[in-house]
């Protein structure tokens, strides 16, 4: 009997492949299947009732779904852009600092290390209209008379979640861009200063082209973590008030476990996953292009 020769790398990768297949791939396939059924948790037999594309039709024509979709995209777009700008600014500031660089870098990483649930809790506490730090501070400083209903008002709740999200993830951008700044060769910068550039011009023409790939790495990593918004929202507002901060994932979670409509939830989940993959793919392409550029020139 001829023995099967398996190459070493495949052998090494086998555990990883098996585990991921078992825990991710197969459940995803199952999930895909169940999205075509009327499966409900409370009536397990419905797993075998195929209803074709009805779940998807319902999802795509459900206004709540599109509202949640819109809110999610809005939150993520604003959050990513803010995090990019603030992270860039923070990285530039830390880079210019003369003393205590290591302490600064550790401090900057703090928010990254907090579990999203913890982040949500912190800001839930701080934005609380009664005992929260924000309202107390505003009142003590005499800026406002009445407490601001941060988590009760729909728009303000959105802003509060945005603040929590930006606070928690700006360090990712800051640290990666800082790594880029530290890796940048110094002499073109000096040449730019001699050539007549102001600080802004030197940044625009020399610094930015170099750290662009680092910024894109950060974008790609962040878009992979897009679902973190679930944890924070769940604990701060749980989609409230009255569904005004319901994002895609809190909604899907609610439909699946709260309403037990698994089949329907899975359909919505798949639509959302496509969205997530598109996000990631877009940034990955940008990153690959920037990588080749940087390797060729620098």
């Amino acid at each position, binding site marked *: 009997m001829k023995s099967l020769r398996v*190459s*070493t*790398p495949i052998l*090494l*990768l086998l*555990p*990883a492949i098996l*585990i*991921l297949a*078992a*825990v*991710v*791939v*197969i*459940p995803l396939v*199952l*999930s895909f299947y*169940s999205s075509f059924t009327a499966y409900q948790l409370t009536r397990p037999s419905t797993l075998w009732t195929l209803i074709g594309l009805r779940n998807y039709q319902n999802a795509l024509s459900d206004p709540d779904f599109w509202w949640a979709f819109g809110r999610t995209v809005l939150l993520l777009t604003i959050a990513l852009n803010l995090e990019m700008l603030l992270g860039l600014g*923070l990285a530039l*500031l830390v880079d210019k*600092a003369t003393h205590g660089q290591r302490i600064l*870098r*550790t*401090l900057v*990483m703090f928010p990254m*290390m907090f*579990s999203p*649930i*913890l982040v949500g*809790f*912190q800001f839930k*506490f*701080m934005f609380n209209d*009664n*005992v929260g*730090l924000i309202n*107390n501070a505003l009142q*003590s400083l005499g800026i406002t008379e009445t407490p601001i209903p941060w988590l009760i008002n729909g728009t303000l709740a959105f802003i509060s979640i945005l603040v929590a999200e930006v606070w928690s993830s700006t*360090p990712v951008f800051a*640290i*990666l861009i*800082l*790594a880029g700044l530290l890796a940048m060769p110094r002499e073109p910068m000096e040449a730019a200063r001699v050539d007549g550039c102001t*600080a802004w011009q030197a940044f625009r023409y020399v610094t930015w082209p170099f750290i662009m790939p680092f910024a894109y790495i950060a974008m790609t*990593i962040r878009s992979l973590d897009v*679902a973190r918004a*679930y*944890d924070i929202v*769940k*604990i701060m507002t749980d989609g409230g008030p009255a569904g005004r901060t319901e994002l895609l*994932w809190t909604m*899907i*979670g609610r439909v699946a476990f709260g309403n037990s409509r698994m089949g329907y939830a*899975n359909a919505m989940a798949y639509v959302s996953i496509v969205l*997530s*993959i598109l996000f*990631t793919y877009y940034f990955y392409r940008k*990153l690959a292009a920037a*990588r080749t550029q*940087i390797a060729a020139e620098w």
Partner: protein
Amino acid sequence: MAADRNQSSRNMRRLAKAGNGITLCLAMLFICMPGAWIVLNALRPTVEIMAKPPVWIPQRLSLEAFTAMFGAVGHGGVPVWDYFRNSLIVSITSTVIAIAVGMAGGYAFARYRFKGKSGLFLAFMLTRTVPGIALSLPLFIVYARLQILDTHFALILTYVALNVPFTIWLIDGFFRQVPRDLAEAAQIDGCTRWQAFWQVEFPLAGPGIASSGIFAFLTSWNEFALASQLTRSVASRTLPVGLLDYTSEFTIDWRGMCALAVIMILPALALTFIIQKHLVSGLTSGAVKG
């Protein structure tokens, strides 16, 4: 006139430097404030927290919140010990396994060329695009059928799968930084490939592997979405889920929750100190020099 130009230049530079410093301080303040506020409030009596007008300088500090929390086990309080125990068991076990799998996979990607390599790598990375909550739906079904819901095993298995792609990515980067010639030199010196790996390559990539382990630990320690659905009772519930439960109760014990939050954050912060240098280098070297 020359003196004026020099003077104005000097002033501009001083102004810029001061501006930088102030902005940096404000930024640091903003970053540290939430965490510091939580710690502070875990140490203050509830009376002070609820006081109106607000009390800014703490009058009394005590560790009551912590003793109350740990002492209230079985009296209808939050079963903190159980949650802590569960989190610890699940996180450590899944980390160890994830590192083992990650080392094998990372080494394969770093040292070998084979067909479908980049495709496989992309596939690994794509599994991370699936958000936890999305995965929890089918996993719930599967685990329910297999009757492993609410067990440590289920959570450990899940977290290993969650951590493996990133661990492989990081460890791949770290192994690439170890020059290939070293293992070859060791083999010339008499080692088998297996020995060469453990004697030469593993120690050099060691700090990096430790960092990815710590990162995996933190991911497991902080994970919420999957844990919230896959655990049902004190038997396997982890700290993040515990925090949410606590928060949702009708009477909001702010001080108690702050104390619980502090317990959750301490291991994470301690580990952050250790890995911060490696984390960045791992992320960028793996991704840029590729």
